[in-house]
């Protein structure tokens, strides 16, 4: 039982890192960024390339190396997100949302098959593996590496929550989500804040990509597809556009999958997750902590 909870929370914290970028972008420009999962993939490959370049250094202290690579990868995928926003999305601002959505699908394919050309179609095996000895915590087997990865995700999420809740930039992000035109009249550079949102969201997805590479060991150019859909599911469960809701939704999704696969078998995991997506879209489309729809005018 406690093993299932632990597994669920662990997977959920991965989902949360990816889902946050999804939800932030949706919140600020109402775009379902289908390319977001591919930034996670890009993060995994960037980390792979960096670890390869570091070569022999890595073996001695794999966890430290992985954390250094994590930070560098976050910067790289963050910049990748900036480029996509600038090239693919900004020119379409003010256009119908369908055009933007189709462009996002295009950006997703561009990243996937671009990576395929650059890195080849075969799966790659990460040079460092985070397996190591397990300790017993309340009846669950937990590895040190899992604890570190969860601590890193938690730290990133807390930092994001503080940034959005307490700084002028974070406040500006929330304000743009409500009324971009009024923001211009406050002197807020709306384009710059939107770009920053893409940077932060993409950096977090990149972090998750490196962590997944180190944890699962195998990466390929289509790995972002399913995780992107899972992140979307997590965001819908929690309330898309709502940051604390998305964190909650990701943990709930992780737990649902963990318990679901235990009861009905591992091959049903994705069926189970997307079944819940459909359930939530039908019964409670605003999610657990969704935005209120009615507002006083």
């Amino acid at each position, binding site marked *: 039982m406690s093993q299932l909870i632990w597994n669920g929370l662990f997977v959920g914290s991965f989902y949360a890192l990816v889902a946050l970028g999804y939800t932030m972008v949706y919140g600020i420009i109402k775009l379902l960024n289908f390319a977001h999962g591919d930034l996670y993939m890009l993060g995994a490959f960037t980390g792979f390339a960096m670890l390869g370049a570091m070569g022999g250094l890595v073996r001695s202290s794999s966890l430290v190396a992985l954390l250094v690579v994590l930070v560098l990868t976050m910067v790289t995928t963050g910049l990748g997100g900036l480029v996509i926003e600038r090239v693919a999305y900004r020119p379409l601002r003010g256009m119908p949302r369908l055009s933007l959505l189709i462009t996002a699908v295009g950006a997703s394919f561009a990243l996937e098959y671009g990576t395929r050309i650059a890195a080849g179609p075969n799966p790659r095996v990460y040079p460092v593996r985070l397996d190591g000895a397990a300790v017993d915590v309340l009846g669950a087997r937990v590895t040190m590496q899992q604890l570190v990865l969860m601590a890193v995700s938690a730290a990133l999420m807390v930092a994001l929550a503080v940034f959005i809740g307490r700084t*002028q930039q974070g406040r500006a992000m*929330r304000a743009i989500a*409500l009324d971009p035109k009024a923001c*211009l*009249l*406050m*002197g807020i550079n709306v384009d710059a804040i939107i770009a920053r949102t893409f940077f932060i969201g993409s950096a977090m997805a990149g972090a998750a990509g490196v962590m997944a590479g180190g944890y699962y060991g195998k990466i390929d150019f289509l790995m972002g597809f399913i995780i992107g859909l899972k992140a979307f599911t997590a965001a819908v469960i929690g309330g898309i556009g709502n940051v604390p809701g998305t964190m909650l939704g990701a943990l709930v999704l992780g737990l649902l999958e963990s318990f679901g696969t235990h009861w009905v078998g591992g091959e049903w995991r994705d069926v189970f997750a997307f079944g819940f997506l459909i359930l939530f879209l039908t019964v409670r489309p605003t999610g657990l902590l969704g*935005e209120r729809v009615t507002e006083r005018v």
Partner: protein
Amino acid sequence: MLELTDLKVNYGGVTALRGLSLTVREGETVALLGNNGAGKTTTLSAISGLVRLAGGDIKYQGESVAGEPPPAIVARGLVHVPEGRRIFSTLTVHENLLLGGYLVRDGKELARRLERVYELLPRLAERRGQEGGTLSGGEQQMLAIGRALVAGPKLLMLDEPSMGLAPLVVAAVMEVIHDISAEGTAVLLVEQNARAALEIAQRGYVIENGRCTLEGPAAELSADPRVVEAYLGKV
């Protein structure tokens, strides 16, 4: 301090302004009157940089500011309170005011300006932790004005601040605007409620079809039979 000359604005194929000129002098309150669709809101949007000019020029303190992006206009001290208040409904009153001071980099200065706004508008201080959307219409208008004051305006532009408010509340809003101008801030006031606007303004312009058709001191305008008939109603 502000001079618009021969301003032209088109929206798609529709001409909103066809050669509008007006001036606001230092410390003065100017009323901009006219019917729906006359071009009042477009005039303010043009000054703020929200719409592109098809012709004409905007000079602020002798310098052309036409074509500058909205944040640059705000940084110069030209602050626009938009029609319909446009407050951030799920942000608290305090957060709304903080965003008004987005360009203020000095934290102490920002805190000082917020204190001043809370002094001027004590109702906002009582509700500082409440979400903006839960305020009454009059309070929302006060919040929109307060938010603009935090930006430190030299010229405050107000678009229909009396819209949708009860007469008593309109009087309270006008009093606040009067207080602001009494402290030396110039005000450009767009209003359909011509009577309320001309009471606190020194001068006024009447806009029709994207052009100024009448201008003069407020007292003169309120006595002008054309204004009385069109905007004030016979008494």
